[in-house]
């Protein structure tokens, strides 16, 4: 069967499956199984357990997921989240959207601690989302800034997707890491700016705190004391990773342990809270890991049936010209990103795109960062975006996936603005790596 028809059938099957309300993991997995059976052959069915074992279960990189979930859950049940956000409240003063800005800032810090796109969203979703909703924030504003903020995790180093890209495309991972910092900060600033402007114009989106008129500097400082613990924790995780003492995954374990210490110190640790943390971590881990299992089943069969050649032909059919090809490749990435996971997209496209990059004379580091920025949009662009599903799973009752889809749209647009800026001004990305490594 022709690969273009297979592609159509695969994605048609996925859309129908998703609409049916069957969990995403099982939709992707079942499509993988059915297509393997009919288009590859019964003899190849053994690939399903083989890839589940090799790609999803035995992966040291993915091991950071349960640990960062655990860290977030402990912080949530330690009451630390509320204290952290009341502190931000007090300092945020009357500024509308102060909490959303704080969430973006903390997400940015998280991005600098984790290599994946979900950790910031999961942790801030557990901590900042209830706080913002309790303070009367517009729920779309609250959901959007957390979803987009978390996606910074794959752009700001360390980043697992960057490592995969660097390996496959033979680009220095060190340079890629350094090149992610500028665009990451740029996007964070864009989000903050958007939140502040929107809340100035439409104060009901993020009501400011009125109470701080009466709070004294002493009270502010006292409130800030509660922030010291979490900040030390973040510094410990960040510091141990950047100083090279440990890997990102190991940092996630330190973070979980540190947060447990904070929980013990705040005297909130008891059997009930311990069980709530543990069970919550288990459920989220199960949900995330089974989506990854499903995504691998889906992506692997697509690759086996000839995705690489199909995409190469698509690229070759593009009109010529430096920016023409560039824009079309970006649109293709974005389209794939709407429905596939970034790891799978790197796997499928990078080996085919790289010769094009060579021929067209794009700077491979710059192109890599643009690719990652695009994949970052993939994390939050409907219908298939990990961060959207994470948000859905931790959002309070009454928030549907539709709310989340609508909430994320302005932030996807901001990401596109950021992507255009870095495309037009490559120095935003290339400045820091040039500073560190020279030309």
């Amino acid at each position: 069967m022709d690969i273009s028809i297979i592609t159509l059938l695969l994605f048609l099957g996925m859309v129908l499956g998703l609409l049916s309300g069957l969990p995403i993991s099982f939709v992707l997995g079942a499509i993988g199984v059915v297509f393997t059976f009919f288009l590859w052959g019964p003899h190849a069915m053994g690939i399903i357990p083989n890839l589940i074992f090799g790609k999803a279960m035995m992966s040291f990189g993915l091991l950071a997921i349960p640990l960062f979930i655990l860290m977030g859950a402990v912080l949530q049940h330690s009451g630390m989240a509320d204290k952290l956000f009341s502190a931000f409240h007090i300092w945020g003063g009357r500024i509308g959207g102060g909490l959303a800005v704080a969430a973006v800032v903390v997400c940015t810090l998280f991005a600098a601690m984790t290599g994946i796109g979900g950790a910031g969203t999961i942790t801030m979703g557990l901590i900042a989302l209830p706080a913002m909703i309790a303070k009367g924030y517009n729920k779309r504003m609250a959901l959007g800034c957390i979803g987009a903020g978390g996606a910074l995790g794959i752009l700001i180093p360390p980043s697992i997707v960057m490592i995969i890209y660097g390996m496959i495309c033979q680009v220095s991972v060190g340079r890629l890491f350094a090149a992610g910092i500028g665009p990451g900060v740029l996007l964070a600033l864009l989000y903050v700016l958007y939140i502040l402007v929107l809340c100035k114009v439409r104060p009901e989106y993020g009501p400011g705190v009125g109470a701080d008129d009466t709070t004294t500097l002493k009270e502010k400082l006292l409130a800030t004391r509660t922030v010291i613990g979490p900040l030390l924790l973040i510094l410990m995780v960040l510091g141990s990773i950047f100083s090279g003492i440990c890997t990102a995954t190991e940092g996630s374990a330190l973070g979980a342990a540190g947060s447990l210490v904070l929980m013990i110190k705040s005297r909130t640790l008891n059997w009930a809270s311990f069980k709530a943390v543990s069970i919550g971590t288990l459920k989220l881990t199960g949900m995330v890991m089974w989506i990854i299992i499903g995504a691998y089943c889906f992506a692997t069969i697509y690759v086996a049936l000839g995705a690489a050649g199909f995409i190469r032909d698509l690229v070759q059919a593009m009109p010529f010209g430096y920016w023409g090809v560039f824009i079309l490749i970006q649109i293709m990435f974005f389209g794939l990103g709407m429905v596939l996971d970034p790891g799978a997209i790197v796997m499928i496209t990078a080996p085919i795109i790289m010769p094009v990059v060579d021929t067209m004379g794009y700077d491979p580091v710059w192109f890599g960062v643009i690719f990652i920025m695009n994949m970052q949009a993939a994390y939050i662009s409907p219908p298939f975006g990990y961060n959207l599903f994470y948000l859905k799973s931790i959002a309070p009752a009454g928030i549907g996936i539709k709310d989340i889809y609508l909430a994320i749209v302005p932030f996807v647009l901001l990401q596109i603005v950021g992507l255009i800026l870095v495309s037009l001004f490559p120095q935003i990305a290339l400045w820091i790596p040039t500073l560190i490594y020279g030309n």
Partner: protein
Amino acid sequence: AEKVFRWKYQQMRIAAEPGMAYYKEMFEKTLPAMTNGRLKVQMFWGGDLVKSTDALDAVQSGIVEMIGMPSIYFKGVIPEASIEYGLPFGIRTPYEMYNFMYGKDMPNMFGGWRAIDVYRKIYAKHGVHYLAGGVDCWPAAFMFRSPINSIGDIKGKKVRASGLMISWIERLGGQGVFIPGEEAYSALQTGAIDGITWGGAMGMHSMKFHEVAKYYLYPSLMPINHLTVLVNQKAWDALPEDLQVALEQAVVRAGMDITAHQNWSGEQWGLRQMAKAGVTINHLTGEDLKKAEEVAYGLWEEEAQKSPEAAELVGMMKDYMRTMGYME
């Protein structure tokens, strides 16, 4: 019409590596042309279908018809795989490796070793056909963050290594660790590791290790590594004899081409490029070299205990090395 065989071949390498376009073309264009379109082998790159660690199971159970991996990935199932992957201070050039594997017809000059027959025997016990090995060869070497002028300099060093090189490093007082290739650059950069073994100068250069490790230990501490190409037994048996011959020829031809262009000429090129980037080449000589060899030969003896076939292989290797004058 004649039956058309459509196979899937899971490779360990990635498409962007130099020479891979040619390698792929051998299976997807040349081979069909050679066989009148009756054998079509579709190439998949590292991790495309299954992870390298699970590739042996995939070819044994027939998920894919063919895999091409360094044998170290089979070590957990096939005890002799460590020897195949490389005995420290073993074979030193790709052409000697070819000679050791296939050197049948010149018994008077070159001993008449034919290691491939032993490997076929070993792998047949595990239900797979050993199609080819010893053709897609690459030299491997060490790079360090600090100069290694004597054997004592290895003491206390944390080195990313694989296979028996881990044991070798540890016998010399270093510490062998296995970390995935994608983490190696930053581990070297931050000093989490002090050195690395990797596939030769060209490979080191493409991984940009010379940016973070300035000392190259050369030559000949590491054995020549090679790719092992395995075929599912049922798929192999179902293949008509003329296609079996064509497939083996294609694998040998493609592998030797990769060796010639990338892994051997590329080695010389990579060394020059790194020298330009300020990399110093260190040599172990005299007593240090002797000590290093003794430690390695001790490992050979231990490996030989693992099975009769292991003993046979190590014996062959010793015989070969003595004939070539590398070993006393």
